[in-house]
């Protein structure tokens, strides 16, 4: 993977957080900086969070300061049921503009941009093809505010790609997401006791499981696949088929003519059906997902399987509603956990198996071990001994400076005897469970 220093927008959305978690596990990724207007909703290990305003202005300073080479923009609002139209516009159009501005310029370190868009780009019309391919535009101008926003945002991304030839730009147009932890207008609608449909219509629907949303994003981050790609699971289902799989009853409560008016009536009953969803409930939409598959991505679930998994998760959820407390982001705790600043111009890579000890560090470690062997009781009894006192405490200080993952990376190069020595020292001092566990595993692997 070429992406080492990543900026992720929309960190606090479910898939944004999941993507960050997945990227954290990539050894080649040095830094992940996530920005969002809200605080993260998922627990993150080494992703740094920066809170920004809806417009995402001033992003350029972060990009330049942290030498970001890859920007992943997952922030687009594609469901007008979740926010006000004004905020959505602010986020989708002005936000996109600012993010693109943050990535451009002659000196910019950004080499890659991944933009999360939506199948709403194509809209839902009477004369649509049954499967949209990436090469098709919209047959008609955008009708609903959210579609207008998406088309405008994609246009800005397109212009950006045109002007910045050396930046690899990938646009993903996602189908409607489905998953136990997602919250969208469609999923809310599916949870109604009786699902209202439009009389005389049975639209075709395609979904994407949240794991595949994250998987597809990860795929395009870790491979160089510039271009536009539809992301939708295999299989286009009729709405009645979807509702059958969900064990739902439905009633054609929405009138075929004047559907907007009957939707207003539903709103009075507390069911909000946003305009773009109303169009989808009438005409449906199918996306041709083959182009992404051709780049090597394999979907984990078909639409049917995704719906079934969602159904299963719903059943389980009903059993244990108070189980576990949701994660809450606490800034001070997170700051404490990430003492080492990611924003720096030079220095060693932060972590992962890609880290190799330098000759100096190895030498330091040998000296540490020698000191420990010579006077183990001493070091334990007098804690001052390992404090860096000018020149004398050099080796020990160097060891204390090493972070857990760095220590773990050195372990394979040590003798069993040294390992045991190190374990004792670690147990007496920092007693980091990860380090102790890693030493135990390393000892198990060796014949002693």
């Amino acid at each position, binding site marked *: 993977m070429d992406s080492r220093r990543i900026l992720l927008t929309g960190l606090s959305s479910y898939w944004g957080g999941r993507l960050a978690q997945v990227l954290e596990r990539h050894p080649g990724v040095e830094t992940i900086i996530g920005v969002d207007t809200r605080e993260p909703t998922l627990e993150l290990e080494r992703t740094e969070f920066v809170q920004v305003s809806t417009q995402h202005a001033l992003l350029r300073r972060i990009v330049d300061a942290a030498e970001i080479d890859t920007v992943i923009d997952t922030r687009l609002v594609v469901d007008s049921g979740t926010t006000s139209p004004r905020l959505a516009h602010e986020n989708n159009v002005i936000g996109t503009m600012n993010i693109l501005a943050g990535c451009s310029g002659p000196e910019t370190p950004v080499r890659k941009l991944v933009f999360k868009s939506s199948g709403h780009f194509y809209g839902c019309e*009477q*004369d*649509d*093809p*049954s*499967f949209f*391919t*990436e*090469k*098709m*535009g*919209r047959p008609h101008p955008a009708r609903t505010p959210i579609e207008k926003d998406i088309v405008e945002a*994609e246009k800005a991304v*397109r212009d950006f*790609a*045109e002007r910045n*030839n050396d930046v690899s*730009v*990938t*646009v993903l147009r996602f189908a409607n997401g489905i998953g136990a932890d997602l919250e969208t207008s469609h999923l809310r609608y599916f949870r109604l006791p009786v699902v209202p449909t*439009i*009389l*005389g*219509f*049975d639209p*075709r629907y395609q979904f994407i499981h949240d794991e595949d949303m994250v998987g597809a994003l990860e795929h395009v981050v870790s491979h160089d696949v*510039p*271009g*536009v790609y539809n992301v939708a699971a*295999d*299989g*286009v*289902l*009729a709405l009645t*088929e979807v509702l059958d799989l969900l064990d739902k009853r439905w009633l054609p409560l929405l009138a*075929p*003519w004047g559907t907007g008016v009957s939707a207003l009536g539903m709103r009075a009953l507390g069911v909000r059906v946003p305009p773009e969803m109303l169009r989808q409930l009438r*005409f*449906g939409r*199918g996306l*041709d*997902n*083959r*182009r992404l*598959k*051709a780049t090597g991505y394999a979907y984990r679930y*078909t639409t*049917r399987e995704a719906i079934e998994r969602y159904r299963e998760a719903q059943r389980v959820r009903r059993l244990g509603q108070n189980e576990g407390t949701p994660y809450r982001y606490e800034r001070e705790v997170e700051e404490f956990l990430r003492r080492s600043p990611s924003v720096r111009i030079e220095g060693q890579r932060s972590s992962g198996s890609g880290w190799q000890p330098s000759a100096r560090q190895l030498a330091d470690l040998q000296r540490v071990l020698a000191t420990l062997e010579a006077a183990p009781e001493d070091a334990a009894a007098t804690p001052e001994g390992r404090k860096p006192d000018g020149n004398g405490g050099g080796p020990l200080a160097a060891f204390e400076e090493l972070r857990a993952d760095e220590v773990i990376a050195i372990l394979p190069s040590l003798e069993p005897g040294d390992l045991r020595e190190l374990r004792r020292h670690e147990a007496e001092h920092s007693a980091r469970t990860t380090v102790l566990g890693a030493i135990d595993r390393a000892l198990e692997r060796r014949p002693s």
Partner: protein
Amino acid sequence: MASDRRTPLRERETDHGPDVFERRRQDDRPGLPARREDLRDFLPGLEPERQVSDWGRSERVEGALDRTLVEFLYRYWFRVTVEGIENVPADGGALLVSNHSGALPPDAAMIAKSIKEEHPRERPLHLTVEHFFKGYPGFSMLVQKIGGVAAHPANVHRLLYDERQLVLVFPEGRKGTEKLYKDRYRLRRFGRGGFVEAAMRAHAPIVPIAVVGAEEAQPAFAQLSLLQRLSGLLYVPLTPTFPHLGLLGMVGYLPAKFTVRFLEPVRTDGMGDEPWQDKGLVQNVAQDVRAVIQENLHEMVAKRRSVWMG
């Protein structure tokens, strides 16, 4: 300088294409896959758990209708005679082109049924229908479930080229079903030759079909424009049973004897590289197909002794 000025115009043409991202020249019309991009291996597999296809075709609905109404019409009402079934290829995509008539045309269902009954391989047939049907309540559900697909070039291409299916088109379109009884068996204009282009792009043969009997099964004597405007339908004809017998009168067919004749396939490969760019050639092929259907219709009508008994 002249070429400089042309450039932005061309780019606007493919405004939403991904070519900018890939910096690859797009030489094809937007909406249709580029010539060399073959994604057939990546088609989604069939899920045995499902009874509805990705196109929205429902085995259950189609089967129920096929066993009852269509079966009855095919065997006892229209007593369909099939000729030249061997002209329908046993595999690969093929574009079936037929004449079209009847207010709620029975010909498509009879052609589909005759392939199902007579062809050794029981191939499913996809009918292309006007976009209108997708927007009209009721039709929208039904047409899709019994195998109707909107007549979009991309749909036809996917079916013919990628899925290698049989596709039935009526190039006359609504001009055929709108025409009155006095104009029977006189083919209307064959559109703009779009069906030939579709077949050429997919390298699929064209199988012309001549259907006799449908004109008499539901003769339209006049078009009721006021009712048409009120109902928002494509057209509202005056037939022997409609509209005075109500909605059921729409399927009030007279028991005319049907003959479905499949004609020699017209090959569209081997016409050179990208023959669809040659609009003259496209028009010629369309004219030839139209002529051969018209010729056969005349011959079949001439031989027919009785409208009802054949």
